[in-house]
């Protein structure tokens, strides 16, 4: 150790922290020299090639078996594809033929022949094929290495953090047999094979560090922070201790989470609540489930729109179905596009005040083509009965009625084509505009559920843009006006016997939990990682106390009074809980 601490930033690819000794893994690309062979060597050369194919098959079969054991058959598909490619008789015959006629050594012919296809695939626009091109290249190197009878290191004795320029899927799986503490690579991104496999294996990883292999030597002490995506080379003792402390806390937290996950969100006196997750991408469903979410309370669909291009119905359907299937039997509330016109139609639509402009359902109602396409895609994903539709930025009852008409149109369009969907799909609206909150009683008779979007509700109630730093301090979650609106919305919903959810940030704020429980909010939908916290609070209070506290909290005239009061009550109730 030369004692110079260095921090390198990369991409957080798999969460977790590792402190340990680096092992630099340098996989040399096979050296291929083109060598002419004599007529009598042809048979030997073909024999070398065929033996290498067999050897590669047996290696890959072992890797496939290992991968299935560790991460299941879905994740192991990469290796199955490679095995299939090794069985390509046409390719094998072609290579043998070329060895016979051209009379060059096997590895140079293999390289030349396979590379043609790698180039084809790389040049395609298809992401899937580009990945397959890497697999084929990786396979080619495996066969060539076996022709040359070289071995790749994949075992080591003590626990190590593997540092490499890049890792193939096979490397990532094979190293996991050893006590690998983490993966550090120069190349790769969040969705590269190494990253996906590392997450599946639950091994911390930071990728895309660009020059990690330049700064790290085998034997260096390294801290890998897979949460932040940083690597610290030769850390100071104090930093090591900090990280050790952090690892202890994380382990403790994980143990608690695991326990909590199994338990219901139920108060001490038996009142049950539903905890759901907000997600932005289908992949986040896993995180939601890991944190104990019973379903998805808000699936934002804006991510689908890429560069002003809205995908067609089939493509949208596949995305929605993926989430619906993954979370089944839990439910998923799919929200139609909640985006400003200035964002979708960047090139020609400009507004001075987009937050008060053409956004959310306003666009949908003006552009039924967009709305109907999305509705049909959502309906098709509802076949198992666990999908609900939610509309954003609803301001008037007229809009709700118009929305319902479009849902009926979308349904009849599907019926005409004999496409099945959930006939009884539930329709709800976001309550995020003061007018909707104040009309909640009437609104509740029109829909199946409400979801309170606190971020916008606060912004519109207090007339403050929270992105604007100058006025950000007026953005008050606990402003009495906001709380009274929330109370009114919940009461109005319950009068019509429909459930109310909250999907704004307030639902994940521990300070608000007692208040919301007391007001009778049915469902809390938060970012996945807030779920355990909220559950813990719900489990440590009594519903009757929460009711009393919320009643009192609503009497105050200023946010600071409310906050002081809630802090005190929260502390009294759950002393061991730190905010």
């Amino acid at each position, binding site marked *: 150790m030369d004692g110079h601490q260095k921090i390198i930033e990369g991409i957080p690819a798999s969460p977790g922290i590792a402190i340990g000794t680096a092992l630099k893994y340098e996989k040399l690309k096979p050296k291929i020299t083109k060598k002419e062979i004599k007529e009598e060597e042809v048979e030997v050369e073909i024999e070398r090639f065929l033996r290498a194919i067999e050897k590669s098959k047996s290696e890959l079969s072992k890797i496939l078996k290992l991968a299935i054991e560790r991460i299941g058959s879905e994740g192991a598909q990469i290796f199955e594809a490679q095995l299939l490619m090794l069985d390509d008789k046409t390719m094998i015959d072609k290579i043998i033929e070329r060895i016979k006629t051209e009379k060059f050594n096997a590895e140079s012919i293999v390289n030349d022949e396979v590379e043609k296809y790698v180039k084809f695939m790389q040049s395609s626009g298809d992401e899937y094929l580009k990945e397959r091109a890497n697999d084929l290249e990786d396979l080619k190197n495996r066969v060539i290495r076996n022709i040359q009878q070289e071995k790749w290191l994949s075992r080591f004795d003590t626990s190590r953090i593997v540092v490499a320029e890049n890792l193939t899927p096979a490397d990532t799986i094979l190293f996991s047999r050893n006590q690998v503490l983490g993966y550090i690579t120069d190349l790769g991104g969040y969705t590269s094979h190494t990253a996906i496999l590392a997450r599946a294996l639950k091994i911390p990883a930071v990728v895309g560090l660009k020059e990690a292999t330049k700064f790290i030597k085998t034997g260096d002490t390294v801290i890998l922070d897979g949460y932040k995506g940083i690597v610290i080379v030769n850390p100071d003792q104090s930093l090591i201790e900090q990280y050790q402390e952090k690892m202890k806390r994380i382990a403790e937290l994980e143990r608690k989470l695991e326990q909590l996950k199994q338990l219901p969100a139920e108060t001490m006196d038996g009142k049950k609540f539903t905890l759901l997750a907000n997600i932005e991408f289908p992949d986040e469903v896993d995180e939601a489930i890991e944190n104990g979410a019973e379903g998805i309370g808000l699936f934002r669909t804006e991510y689908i729109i890429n560069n002003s291009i809205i995908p067609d119905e*089939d493509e949208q359907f596949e995305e929605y179905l993926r989430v619906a299937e993954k979370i089944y039997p839990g439910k998923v509330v799919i929200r139609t596009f909640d985006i400003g016109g200035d964002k979708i139609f960047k090139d020609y639509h400009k507004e001075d005040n987009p937050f008060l402009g053409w956004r959310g359902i306003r666009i949908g109602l003006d552009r039924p083509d967009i709305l109907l396409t999305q509705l049909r895609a959502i309906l098709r994903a509802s076949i198992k009965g666990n999908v609900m539709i939610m509309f954003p930025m609803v301001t008037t009852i007229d809009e709700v009625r118009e929305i319902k008409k479009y849902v009926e149109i979308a349904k009849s369009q599907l019926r005409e*084509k004999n496409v*099945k969907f959930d006939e009884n799909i539930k329709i709800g609206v976001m309550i995020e505009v003061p007018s909707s909150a104040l009309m909640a009683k009437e609104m509740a008779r029109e829909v199946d559920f409400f979801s309170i979007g606190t971020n916008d509700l606060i912004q519109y109630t207090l007339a403050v843009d929270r992105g604007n730093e100058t006025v950000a301090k007026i953005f008050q979650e606990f402003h009495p006006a906001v709380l009274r609106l929330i109370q009114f919305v919940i009461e109005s919903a319950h009068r019509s016997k429909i459930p109310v959810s909250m999907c704004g940030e307030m639902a994940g704020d521990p300070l608000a939990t007692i208040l919301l429980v007391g007001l009778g909010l049915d469902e809390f939908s938060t970012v996945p990682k807030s779920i355990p916290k909220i559950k813990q609070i719900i489990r440590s209070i009594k519903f009757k106390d929460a009711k009393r506290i919320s009643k009192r909290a609503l009497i105050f005239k200023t946010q600071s009074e409310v906050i002081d009061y809630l802090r005190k009550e929260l502390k009294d109730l759950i002393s061991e809980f730190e905010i």
Partner: protein
Amino acid sequence: MIKKEVEIKNRTGLHTRPAAMLVKLASKFKSDFFIEKNGMEINGKSIIGVMSLAAEQGSKLILKFDGEDEEEAAEAIVKLFESGFGELEELKEENKDGRSSKDN
């Protein structure tokens, strides 16, 4: 020689699994089997070749069969394309005619 034009119906296109099915079936026949797409021609009995075609849903391919059993080969392989490599069946079970028009 027989020439047939087909369209890829299944959602995922000629990716790994359908490609493997196609190659396996083609290899049962003695006839040569080539696939042409946008002027590029590959051997239909090679999975690497088939995959590198990057044939996605909706692409049109020309299939060429040449040999003693070319008629049987053509019939069986065209059928496989028409069935959507079994994917359509799976889809129908869950969501009757799950794919609909892309027009609106």
